[in-house]
């Protein structure tokens, strides 16, 4: 049992030992080589999962829309990603004469590198992590927003009006949705008392002195807003305004073809998968779970979150630009701020730790009761915010209908006269 659970650790130690004993390098060099190997493995993992995910997503979305999806290349279309890869690899690649060559050619590299670098801090099992940064959550959010730079580089460097429009939309959207994302990671960090992703997972497991309750039970509203803003951050449907094939022909990557286009696609998918992993770590308890080995749990949970992404993509239509901004600035941000204040006050009022209760006063409760209180307050905020939004939207709709009715009456009168 423990052999399967620690499989990755054992392989890691084995490779470390081989390098150390056979080549006889100094410890620093050995560490450098193993870290480089780990980085290569992580990049390969991300790239391979990107290939697999394109196939799964196309198949699943096709099923949702009552189509068959790719089915020609190999059995049930399984070789489709490889065929796509060969096609992308051997396709002619044009650089428009008017483009800014350096910026244009560097943009795909920048987006892919930023997307892959996120994986350095994701913990897949106890001990299986690129580096355990003590600012892990902050690092992922900071690196994740790096793709904005690549997108504005692509839009500006292409010297194409559609690309520039797409880039403007992107910056407005990605920059805006970063605010609710940051605000909803804060309560999780408060609960764990640390920004390290491993500490956050430990707080949600029983084994290492945590509560054993995943954060999604404590903070359902935070989880929902994180999911929404995560989808918007990775520019997936229904928030794919920056691509909007039917409006601005593909947004910032109109001019790209061949391998550069593939790198943009890779960046997008790898970012989306990183958000799924982050959701797993922050709200679903990461690699914690019974019976199965931890890395299987981590992958299963992330796959479930990514399935939700695909499901939303297959079901929802694209929203308008004004709806996107309204939803962010007039709904998610104020509601998140109110929720944050409530969580702060409730955590101080009802501490679950005896020492803290003694130091600051407040009523000492068990973790389960604390979870119940937080859950209730989150639910109240969510329902309250939704009720207010629904009332406002209803008012706007009624006003519009009234205006239309008045105009219709006017037209009727004009027709009669």
């Amino acid at each position: 049992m423990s052999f399967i659970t620690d499989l990755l650790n054992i392989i890691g130690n084995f490779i470390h030992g081989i390098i150390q004993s056979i080549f006889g390098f100094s410890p620093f060099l050995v560490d450098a080589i193993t870290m480089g190997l780990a980085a290569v493995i992580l990049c390969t993992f991300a790239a391979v999962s990107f290939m697999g995910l394109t196939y799964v997503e196309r198949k699943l979305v096709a099923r949702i829309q009552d189509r068959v999806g790719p089915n020609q290349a190999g059995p049930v279309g399984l070789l489709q990603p490889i065929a796509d890869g060969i096609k992308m690899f051997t396709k002619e690649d044009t650089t428009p004469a008017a483009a800014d060559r350096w910026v244009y050619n560097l943009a795909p590299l920048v987006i892919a590198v930023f997307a892959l670098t996120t994986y350095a801090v994701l913990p897949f099992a106890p001990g299986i992590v690129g580096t355990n940064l003590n600012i892990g959550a902050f690092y992922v959010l900071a690196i994740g927003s790096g793709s904005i730079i690549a997108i504005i580089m692509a839009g500006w460097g292409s010297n194409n009006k559609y690309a520039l429009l797409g880039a403007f939309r992107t910056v407005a959207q990605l920059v805006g949705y970063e605010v609710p994302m940051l605000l909803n990671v804060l309560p999780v960090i408060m609960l764990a008392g640390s920004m390290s992703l491993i500490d956050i997972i430990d707080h949600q497991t029983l084994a290492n002195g945590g509560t054993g309750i995943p954060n999604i039970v404590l903070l359902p509203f935070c989880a929902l807003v994180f999911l929404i803003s995560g989808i918007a951050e990775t520019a997936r449907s229904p928030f794919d305004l920056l691509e909007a094939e039917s409006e601005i022909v593909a947004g910032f990557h109109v001019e790209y073809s061949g391998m550069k286009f593939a790198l943009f696609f890779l960046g997008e998918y790898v970012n989306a998968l990183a958000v799924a992993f982050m959701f797993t770590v922050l709200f679903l308890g990461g690699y914690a779970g019974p019976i199965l080995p931890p890395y299987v749990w981590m992958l299963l949970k992330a796959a479930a979150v990514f399935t939700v992404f695909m499901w939303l993509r297959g079901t929802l239509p694209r929203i308008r630009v004004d709806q996107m901004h309204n939803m962010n600035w007039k709904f998610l941000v104020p509601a998140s701020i109110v929720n944050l204040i409530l969580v702060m006050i409730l955590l101080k009022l009802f501490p679950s730790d005896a020492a803290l209760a003694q130091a600051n006063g407040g009523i000492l409760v068990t973790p389960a009761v604390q979870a119940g209180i937080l859950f209730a307050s989150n639910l109240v905020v969510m329902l309250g915010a939704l009720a207010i939004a629904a009332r406002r939207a209803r008012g706007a709709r009624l006003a519009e209908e009234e205006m239309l009715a008045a105009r219709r009456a006017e037209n009727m009168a004009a027709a009669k006269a």
Partner: protein
Amino acid sequence: MITTAALLMGVTLIAASLLRPKKPSKAKLETYECGMETVGDTWVQFRVQYYVLALVFVVFDIEAVLLFPIAVAFNALSWFAVLNVVIFILILLAALVYAWRKGALEWE
């Protein structure tokens, strides 16, 4: 990690450039705007709305950056400190309401 990722992706780009055909022509290198010739300068004037939203974003992003250390040290904070933080957040909420009332968040 950054160097490895950059190396791997750079290698794919270079390998692709060795493999792919390269037959540029004048028409192929033109800016793609659905087959029409481009008119005028590409770097057009953009909406002032983007600028306003960017300003609002900067305020909230810096707020979030200031809140991260507070969140880490949250368990050690006294009631007085927590109330101060709440007041700080409320001021920002007031700023959001002000921007909303001023019409900075409208998009038509």
